């Protein structure tokens, strides 16, 4: 056994390399696909219909819009990936889907936003310098993480541990119950304390600023290409979390214990590993990531309500399954692919179908791919039937 004090550089670089590869790969594949489609449809009624309204050819339109779509797709993809890690960690260790994870995400979002709203009322946010604004955001992130992590551990202790010996369906149903319970608890607490349903992320710092990368000519007008500061924060934070988690699981003693419990719980406990503690730890890590994702989500999309966790949770769960549930790298890949696919479909569907099927149908693509993957590769894109999980 190598001395664990030595920093394992390889495990630090590997996930970042993987993220880059997945991002570029899915962006490349989808862009190529869309461009081919655009070229084929250019001379048909679809192209003429677009030319009529936008005064450009379909291929030009697609090409000009592509960079922005890739940026948007990546941003939401990283959010999904960060939530998906929580599902996949728990599945890897316990082989059970923690449906309450979407509410743990929501609690993280609420704690972070409520903290910032409180700070806003004291006037601190408005007068904050740029450095302080980032400090407050970090504080909100940490508080959201702490609350969500503590909640995840509590939920495991109260609702899952007593059922550990039961049939596999039992904790699943318990998880769905916890999910509903938490939704209504948030609603109740918000109703009693603030009396409001919508909570709005305060505007402060430079997070809403948009960094312009240029303008692309499109017919009579130009299309701005840019990325907002908050999207950069979301992506950076997600990359850091993913890299940190990967390092923890693959290059530390603690990670080794987690992997051991995932492989064989009974044998792990014979080797002197405190299984209950490791499982709690797994929930804690999943909760921390979920909570941070919640605050990031609120930062990016402004408005949250007690049911805010439902759709991102469902999408992230899909991402985890798509990538191969139980597999960390798979969750990253799944999240990025799903986010990209959704954004591509949403952006181009309306144009390619002459407005007959607009962006409202974007989820069809995401979930069709899920079905195809499950039919032809039930273990997911990166999953393996046997061997090490988590």
């Amino acid at each position, binding site marked *: 056994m190598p001395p664990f004090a030595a920093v394992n550089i390889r495990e630090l670089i590997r996930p970042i390399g993987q993220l880059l590869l997945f991002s570029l790969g899915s962006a490349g594949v989808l862009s190529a696909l869309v461009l081919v489609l655009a070229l084929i449809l250019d001379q048909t009624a679809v192209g003429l219909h677009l030319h009529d309204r936008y005064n450009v050819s379909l291929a030009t339109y697609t090409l000009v819009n592509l960079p922005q779509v890739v940026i948007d797709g990546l941003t939401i993809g990283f959010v999904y990936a960060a939530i998906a890690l929580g599902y996949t960690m728990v599945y890897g260790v316990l082989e059970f889907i923690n449906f309450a994870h979407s509410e743990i995400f929501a609690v993280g979002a609420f704690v972070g936003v409520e903290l910032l709203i409180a700070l806003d009322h004291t006037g601190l946010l408005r007068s904050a310098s740029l450095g302080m604004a980032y400090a407050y955001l970090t504080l909100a992130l940490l508080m959201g993480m702490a609350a969500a992590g503590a909640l995840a551990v509590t939920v495991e202790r109260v609702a899952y541990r007593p059922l550990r010996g039961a049939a596999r369906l039992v904790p699943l149903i318990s998880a769905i119950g916890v999910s509903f319970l938490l939704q209504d608890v948030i609603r109740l607490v918000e109703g009693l304390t603030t009396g409001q349903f919508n909570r709005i992320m305060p505007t402060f710092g430079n997070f809403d600023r948009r960094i312009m990368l240029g303008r692309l000519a499109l017919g009579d007008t130009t299309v701005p290409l840019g990325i907002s500061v908050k999207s950069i924060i979301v992506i950076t934070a997600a990359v850091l979390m993913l890299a940190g988690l990967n390092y923890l699981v693959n290059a530390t003693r603690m990670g080794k214990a987690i992997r051991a419990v995932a492989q064989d719980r009974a044998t792990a406990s014979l080797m002197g590993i405190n299984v209950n503690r490791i499982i709690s730890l797994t929930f804690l890590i999943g909760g921390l990531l979920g909570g941070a994702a919640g605050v990031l989500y609120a930062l990016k999309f402004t408005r949250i309500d007690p049911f805010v966790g439902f759709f991102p949770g469902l999408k992230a769960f899909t991402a985890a399954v798509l990538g191969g549930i139980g597999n960390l790298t798979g969750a990253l890949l799944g999240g990025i692919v799903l986010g990209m696919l959704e954004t591509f479909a*949403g*952006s181009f569907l309306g144009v390619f179908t002459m407005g007959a099927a607009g962006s409202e149908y974007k989820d069809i693509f995401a979930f069709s791919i899920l079905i195809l993957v499950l039919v032809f590769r039930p273990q997911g894109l990166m999953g393996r039937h046997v061997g090490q999980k988590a």
Partner: protein
Amino acid sequence: MPKTTLSLCSLLAAAGMTLILSLHAAAAEPVKSIKIASQSPLSGDQSAVGVDIKRGAELALEQVGKPLADMGFKVELAPFDDQANPDTGVANAKRIVSDPAILAVVAHFNSGVHIPSSEVYHSSGLANVSPGTTNPKVTTRGYAEVNRVVGRDDVQGVVGADFAASRGVKSVFIIHDKTAYGQGIAEFFKKRAEEKGMKVLGFEGTEEKANFDALLSPVIAGNPGLVYFGGIYPQGAVLFRQARERGYQGMFMSDDGFDSSDAAKIAGQALLDGAGTYYSTVSGPASVYAGAAKFIQDFKAKYNADPQPFAAQGYDAMAICLKAIEQAAKAKKGEVPTRAEVTQAIRAIKDFAGITGTFSFNEIGDPTMAQYFVLNVKSADPAHWNENSVVETLNLAPPK
């Protein structure tokens, strides 16, 4: 899944409430007890407006319920929460019609909820006055029970499109929320915009509430003079904010569903930037109505907040129900009138002086003359929402 739990919870709550109310009525009342129900979204993301509709009705009962009290009636308000959800609205409606003490219902805020729920009122002959639903179908089914105190979307959409044309808008991207109300008004807007020679770059429906990035790609690429949203503020305000963040500088326009101070809370400065934000509405800010000054004062005194839009309409809808019941009771020499008699009495009302106008209903339940406004958002501060300026006021009769 969450909607199911929601409706289940509300069903239980409603059941409990009715039980308590009926027990209470049985224990304490000698005779002549009357109830008027209300339905509006009291919880959920549209509760800011829904709660104030209920409060408006409550205030009306307090202030203009005296003639009935003098005749020996005890009138109570039975508020129900439809959660802006058609299923919940219909379930509540079934509870409402099964309570014989309820003689009229002030409901709803959402056309998509009102249309199916009013089928229930209609089949039980229960009189219904709506404070804020604007889809034409609410009244064009010709039900004797269903009335409203506001205008219609086939006029409101046209008013919006005419206003946009008068501001020199040449191209528009239209987005709606896929509800009966939002899609309905967006279609009327689109039809009129095309007639006025505007180029419609896109017409999209969406249920998305957070991430509009994908939807905005064709909007930004087309750079239309106007982005029109048919729907309610929790979606519309987020959409407008994200469009501004992506560099759109044109004009925003929406409908009366946008009219809530929460819209400014969500979108803030984004509403004022670029060419600004306008919305058409059938309910002007309470301050534009000559008769509503006292209402605003009393409302503030009682609830410690400015009334949201449609609160004054909630007041009027309730006042009309009370008046009709009073006249029906007088005709019966002080006995409790039947639902059919109340239904007839509402249509028989002529030139009722409410706080938001003078009301008479035509043969399908539309007010014979309705007011339409176009407002311009003036402040990013939600506390100043009531100061949005009225840029256009029109008095129009419902289309034949």
